[in-house]
Every structure is written in C-alpha cells, then in structure tokens.
C-alpha cells in the first residue's frame, strides 16, 4: 500500500510519500525536485504498521497536504509538463497568517529568487523584481531580463515592492513594459504583482492599478495574483485560459467584486478574494458576493477563498446554502473574523458533496467548536497562529493593520 502527498505554499513545495510493506512502513519526504530523505520504521505486526501509517496520513492531510496524483504533481517535478497546466495546489500562496510577513519563497511550486542583474538569468526559477532602499531598478532590471534567453522559457514572474521611495507609485509602468514585451514572454503562465511584506509597505497603502492589460497581453496566463487594494482594477475582466485569480487586499472595493462578477473567465478553477475591512477601503456587503455564491459563474471552480473577511460569520451562514458546494473541492474562509457563530453554520454544511476541504485557519473558535468541526467528514484546518489575540472586546481580520 502506497500514498503520495504534496504540499505547496509561499514558503515551500514538498512531497511526502509513504509505503507499507508487511510490518514496516517507509516514508520518503523532501523538497519537490529533490530525492528527499527516507525513514523506515518497523512495527511488531502489519496491523500496527498500517495503523501508524493511517495516523501519519491523517496528520499530513490536516496540515494541508493533498494527494499528488489528484494535484497533478510528482515528487520530482512541480508540474507534469512545462507548458501544461499548473497544479491547482500550486495556486495557493499564503496559507497561514504568518506567511504574510515574508516574501514568497516559492511560486507555482518553483523557487523564487531576487533578480540579480550581475548573474546570468535562469529559466528554472521564478524571478522577483523589486526596488531596494537605495535604488529603484525594477524597470531596468526587468528590461534586461526580457532581453535574455531565459525570458523566453520563463513560466512565472513576481513583482515585489516596486515603489522605491515613492509609495504613491503604482505598478502601471511595469505592466506597460510587460505588455509591450509580451513576445519576449511566450510561456508566461503566472504572474504576481505585489509580493510586498507589511514591513516593506502596509497592504492597504500599496497603490495598485488596472491589472487587466496583463490578461489581454498574455493568452497563456493561468494565474494572476496581486496584493494591495488601493486603486486595484480589472477593467476588462476577460481571459479564456485563466485558471486562477487571487486578489489580496486589506479592504476590497466593491468595483473589483463587480468586475469579478461580470467577468468572462470560463476556465477559472481557483478564486481567492481577500475582502478586508471598511477601515481599509472595503465598501462591499454580502449581497455583492451573491453572483459568485449563486453558482452561475465559473462552471469549473474547484477552490473558493473568501478570506480576511470582517463578516466571515455572516458569510459562513450564506455559503452553506450555495449551489457551489455541489461542485467545489475547497472552501476557504480563513484569516477573517470567524467565531463559533459562523462555525455553527458550517456544521450544517451539506455532506456527500464534492467538498473535501475547509480552510478556517485564523479564527476565534472555542476548543469545543474545534472538536466539532474536526468531526466533520472533511479535512478541516481550524488552526490559529501562535500569537492570536483573542480578546473578547475586539476581533480583527488577519490583515487589518
């Protein structure tokens, strides 16, 4: 008996395989793309070995690992085919609240490296372009990279803190360069505009712009991820091949939600929206999310994340009745103000649907409620950051400031 699992987030992409043989089991684990390490354990009898294997698998699934085959990931490579679909699991980035305080270490399962104009460009990593405290070379560096052979093979790009000493600067100029040089990036499948930690700039201060020119310029784009809500727009939300859209904000403007709701993304499988709080620009209500929850959009959706939401309890109450639950696999209400009230709604989730996973990381649940949620026949992440502030008076979303 054998089970192969994988895990990916902004920090790492790892595999974990286990194989049972008589009264032993062998675990092989490591970073995807490496051979990893092997540990063999012997038990008094085969039943004990199997019992221990099942326990380990449950633990791994609880931590967010998924079956490699279902995710389309092998232990030795991040995706089956360099030109093929990005595994769905590789779309996620910030899995834990604390991931926000760090720049991405991996993106679409590949290692992220800050672009260094002094070194030859490679195609097997994802480059991040960002300004430093003493210069802003994002555009010159990007232009240099676009002139290399590696650009022609590159699958993904990250734009980090682009603003240098001018936090009012939007990424518009960078997007123009990318759009103008679209022919230099024929394989571009994923782009992240705004890998910016809170020390570099507050999420709600980041000046964004209309990102939809990227959709138009890159027909092979599968994933568009961005951080920052101020000025964020998707003026022409249209793309035949886009499979993932992730918009992280401290407060989402209703116009962005409307753009998503009137979009034409027929192949969208992954939708992650950070809704935020009214103090940081959120001016939407649960009614604005109804077109998404009604299930008439995005026929191929497998993951729905409505995260960092100040009304997560209310949202949970509405989501349980969504027709989407009959076809998505993951529901993610993490990073928001989710209490036992919302959890009670989630306990009423219809079962025997396609739903496999519930991500409720960062929450205000009582221990008893966590136990009840864990008893659901789903993989439930009800974890909390180690330094969760659980004061009774004030409850915050994970990214408020």
């Amino acid at each position, binding site marked *: 008996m054998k089970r192969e699992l994988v895990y990916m987030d902004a*920090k790492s992409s790892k595999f974990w395989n286990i194989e049972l043989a008589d009264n032993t089991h062998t675990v092989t684990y490591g970073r995807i793309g490496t051979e990893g390490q092997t540990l063999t354990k012997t038990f008094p009898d085969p039943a004990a070995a199997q019992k221990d294997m099942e326990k380990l698998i449950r633990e791994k699934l609880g931590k967010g690992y998924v079956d490699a085959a279902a995710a389309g990931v092998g232990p030795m490579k991040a995706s089956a085919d360099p030109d093929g679909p990005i595994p769905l699991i590789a779309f996620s980035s910030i899995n834990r609240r*604390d991931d926000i*305080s*760090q*720049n991405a270490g991996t993106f679409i399962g590949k290692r992220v490296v*800050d672009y260094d104009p002094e070194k030859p460009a490679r195609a097997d990593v994802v480059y991040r372009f*960002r300004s*430093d*405290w003493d210069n802003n070379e994002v555009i010159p560096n990007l232009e240099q990279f676009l002139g290399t052979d590696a650009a022609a093979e590159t699958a993904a790009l990250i734009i980090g*803190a682009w603003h240098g*000493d*001018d*936090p*009012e600067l939007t990424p518009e100029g960078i997007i123009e360069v990318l759009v103008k040089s679209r022919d230099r990036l024929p394989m571009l499948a994923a782009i992240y505009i705004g890998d910016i*930690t809170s*020390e*570099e700039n*507050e999420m*709600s*201060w980041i000046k964004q712009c209309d990102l939809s020119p990227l959709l138009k310029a890159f027909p092979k784009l599968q994933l568009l991820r961005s951080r920052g809500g101020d000025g964020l727009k998707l003026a022409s939300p249209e793309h035949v091949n886009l499979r993932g859209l992730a918009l992280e904000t401290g407060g989402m403007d209703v116009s962005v939600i409307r753009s998503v709701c009137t979009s034409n993304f027929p192949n969208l499988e992954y939708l992650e929206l950070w809704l935020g709080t009214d103090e940081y620009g959120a001016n939407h209500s649960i009614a604005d999310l109804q077109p998404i929850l009604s299930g008439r959009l995005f026929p191929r959706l497998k993951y729905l994340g409505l995260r960092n939401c100040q009304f997560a309890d209310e949202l949970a109450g509405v989501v349980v009745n969504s027709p989407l639950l009959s076809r998505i696999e993951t529901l993610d209400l993490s990073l928001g103000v989710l209490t036992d009230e919302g959890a009670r709604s989630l306990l009423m989730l219809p079962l025997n649907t396609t739903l496999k996973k519930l991500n409720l990381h960062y929450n205000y649940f009582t221990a008893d409620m966590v136990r009840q949620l864990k008893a659901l026949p789903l993989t439930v992440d009800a974890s909390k950051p180690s*330094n969760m502030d659980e004061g009774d008076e004030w409850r915050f979303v994970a990214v408020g*400031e």
Partner: protein
Amino acid sequence: MNGDLSPWASNPRLGLIGNPANRRVRDFQDTVERLGRPRPACVAYEELLRDPEALTRLDVDVLRIDSPGEDERVATALIALGGGPPRAPLELGEIGFLKEYHQGFCRVIERIEQRGIPCVNSPRDITIMFDKWACHQRFVEHAVARPPAELAPEDFPSLLDRMRAHGSGRLFLKPLHGSSASGVCALRWTPHHQQLIAPLRVQSRGGEPVLVNSLDVRTYSTLTDIELILGLLLPQGMIAEQWIPKLALPGGAVDLRVLVIAGEARHWVIRQSRHPMTNLHLGNQRGDAAVLQELIGFHKLDAAFKLAEKAAACFPDSLYAGVDILIDSRHRPLVGEINAFGDLLPRLTHRGETAYAAIAKACYVQSCPV
C-alpha cells in the same frame, strides 16, 4: 584591540562598576570565579553617586564598567546629577529625562576616568556609544555601512514640515541617549496616511500625558496620537534614520546582534520579530541560524560579521561591544547600532564559552601576552 594595557599587572585584579543586585554583575562575578580568579569587587553606581570618593577605596588594576540600567534609584540620581529635578517624578517605565539621565551618566563616567584606572572599555568610548548621533558620525567617517541618518528636529511641527516636504517616507526615530528599544519609533507616511509603530503607550500623570515603555509594540495611525508621542520624545533628542526593511525569514523580520570581543565577532543571535523592533525583551524570538545561512549564503553572513568587527574597531579602546547588524533585501549588511553594554547574552556559547567567560578571559589574556 584594547588600548594601553601596560599598567595591567600580570595577574590583574578586576573590579566592576554596576548595580550589584543586577544579574549582569552577579553573572559576571560568578563567571570570573568559575575561571579560578578572585571574585571581582563591585562598586555600586548608587554608592558612586552618593560618594564620588568611593572609587578610591577600590583597589583594582582594571575596571569593567557595566550598565547603570534597571534601577529606579540610580536613574533618579543620574537625572539629578545631569541637571534634572532632584526627585524626577518618573512613572514605572516612563520614557523621560533622557538628556538629563545621559548627562548624569557622562558625569559619573568622567569621575571614573579621572581616577585613571585602566578600563576594559574606555570611559570615552562608552559615552560615545551612548550618543547615537556621535556613533553615526564616527561610522560614516570610517566608511562603516549605515542607514542614512540625520539629527531629528526637537519639535513636532518642524518634523511635520519635513515630512510634508518629502511627501512620503519612512524613518526610524531613536532617542539619542536611549537604551534597548525604549522610545524607538518606526514612522512612515504618505500624503494620505501615517503610522507610528513603537513599544510604548501614553499614560496620564495628574492630567499630563507621559510615555511609558510597553512590552507590546503598538501602531498609532492618527496624526493626533503621533503628534502627542513625538511631541514628548523629540525634545529629548532623537536621530532620524532611514527605515530599511529588514530581511524576513519564516516567523518574521530579523537582525543580528553580534558580540565583538578583542576584534573578533564571537557570540551572535538572530533576533526575529513581526514588528519593526527586534529587541528580544519585546516578546520576540531568537531566529534559526541555519535558515538564515541557507537563505543568504555563507559569504553574506560572513560579510555581516566582518562589518560588526569593523564597527567595533571604530572604538579601539574598547575590548568588546554588541553590534546590531541589519540585512537588507539584497543581503547587504548595515550597522543598526553599537552597544557598550550589549554583552548580556545569557546561555549562549561560542567555542564552548559564554559571552561573559569569553570577555573575562579576554581581559586576562590581553594583560598577559603569550
């Protein structure tokens, strides 16, 4: 490294100046005893402040001057000596009378210097290390990489004018004569927002606002709050340095505290935080050295140690100093600050020695050349 060591006897008797009840003094005395040397006598700051002649009764060959901190009575006496009120009405943990405290401390150090007893770290160096602007200038002179910095104005309206003239920016404002993170503020602003992040809170004393150190780092976002806080801090003297985002590892941003002893970077810790201040007493944690080395590589880490040594070498009359090194997004090291009393690194060992053992041994080795 140490200056003129010739007056030291071959078996020098070591004396201390400090607060005898403080763990710094006790731990150092215990360490020296464990090395098989006589337990060093300690003259208390309190005694020294009461009776300037106290030093004459100390029969030693070399002096280690330790921190006067963490003692309310010593603080009150230093403030009085520095020209402040005889009984400064300080709340517990209040950030006040920093200038007077520093003046008083310098007066005491002068008295020690006048005695002419050789010191492990020279009195002159110690007073400079307690002046962040003087340190900054010394580092610039010696081409030690530092964040750009200037003296902050002593009133809030002038600072606000400068902020508005720049449109937006990010600064660390640090009291010139503060210690640890006390009074340190991370300030950033745009034409639309402003934010001050600091381990302090505002308290009222008889209707008057006072600033008190707080173990949790708080964020103030209104101009009213920021004006109130900086209105109390700026007149006490501050340095304004560019706030350079620190390198982030899993678990938060990091900087390094490197203890340089006799010219060599020895004990070091990674200080990690989710806030702009990484001082360990603020509930922050020690980071993982292996993770740091994997991320930035051996050469960049070594460059950080070299820079710490270079910073310490700007104070050639001091045997040791704690140097804070920050690492920017391109993994280049910069000196955050240098600390005369930056050797409190309990339980940490390097080549099998604690920091105090290494310093104590260096005191003796330096005096008896092999």
